[in-house]
């Protein structure tokens, strides 16, 4: 079997940002497994600074969609996982919660794709005003940082897998 036919490699290359969703809930067992995969991401000094808010209430999903310039798909998505970090958990968490939470987010999206779901990473941390808004909406304490939201569901659009390496972005032996 060729390396590129490896099932996990195909899942990694096949994961695309999906923004249209069927009107069909994601069952609890699947949600649990997505979170388990997110929790399996590495963290600096194994501090595990991530928290996850699993949102399935339509009212909250729509409210998250309403005030964010790039989150209209949450009007349709049956599920959102808000990935949060706890920077004051330790010195390592303070420095690296964002990297750790991003790895957890990527695991979530890869696992979703592997389980026939689609999803998209909606940035919150670097979108002006969004972190405070999401905190207010979901009652997240101020000491907790909000990385972003994975909007998830059964996809209603299909996209081609990724392939190739962009020109100029690869360096051998040194820059």
């Amino acid at each position, binding site marked *: 079997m060729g*390396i*590129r036919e*490896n*099932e*996990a*490699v195909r*899942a*990694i*290359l096949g*994961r695309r*940002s999906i923004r249209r969703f069927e009107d069909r809930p994601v069952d609890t067992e699947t949600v649990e*497994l997505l979170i*388990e995969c997110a*929790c*399996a*991401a*590495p963290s*600096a000094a194994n501090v*595990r600074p*991530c*928290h*996850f*808010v*699993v949102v*399935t*209430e339509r009212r909250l999903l729509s409210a998250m969609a309403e005030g964010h310039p790039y989150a209209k798909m949450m009007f349709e998505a049956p599920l959102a996982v808000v990935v949060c970090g706890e920077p004051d958990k330790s010195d390592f968490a303070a*420095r*690296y919660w*964002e*990297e*750790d939470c*991003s*790895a957890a*987010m*990527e*695991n979530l999206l*890869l696992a979703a794709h*592997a*389980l026939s779901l689609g999803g*998209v990473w909606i*940035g919150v941390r*670097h979108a002006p005003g969004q972190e405070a808004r999401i905190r207010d909406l*979901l*009652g*997240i*304490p101020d000491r*907790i940082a909000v*990385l972003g939201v994975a909007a998830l569901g059964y996809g209603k659009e299909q996209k081609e*897998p*990724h392939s*190739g*390496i*962009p020109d100029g*972005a*690869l*360096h*051998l*032996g*040194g*820059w």
Partner: protein
Amino acid sequence: MTNFHIDPTIGFILGRRSVRKFLPNAVIPEMVTTLLECAFAAPSAHNRRPLHFIVVDDRATLDALAKAHDSGKAMETAPLAIAVCADTSIMPEGDMAWIEDAAAAMENILIAARALGLEGVWLKVMDRHPREERVTPVFGAPSHVKIVAIAVLGYGDEAKDPYRGVNEERIHRNVWG
């Protein structure tokens, strides 16, 4: 009912552990290319794609990195390292979303490695001092390029159990609490 845990991709996500001891076997170029393709397949905020990768497979540079990085012992035995870097000059002023892009690409590399029978460990570089100042010159990257972290890769010489379960205290339903 599907046993989700047998889905191979899920198995590799849960099975990926930090491995720091490696066999001397080299990683074939076709695998390195696939790892890089998987790295580039990670999502990027607003699709800006600020990432670059430096592939290191020569013993002298790996040894130099092992010396320069205070937690770099894994590079003494590993046949391969991939530095995940971000060109911050293409980002809008003050936008640090490249940190997230870099971390997602790193995770893709590590999961793809596991899927191909390799193992690896994520060594942080950025924001540790003097680590960052010691490691960055070994790569010779210009100052607008941040070396975020290094994936140290190879055939593992230690085995660890897959990750299982969740910490319920870290999961919140609909609202915090």
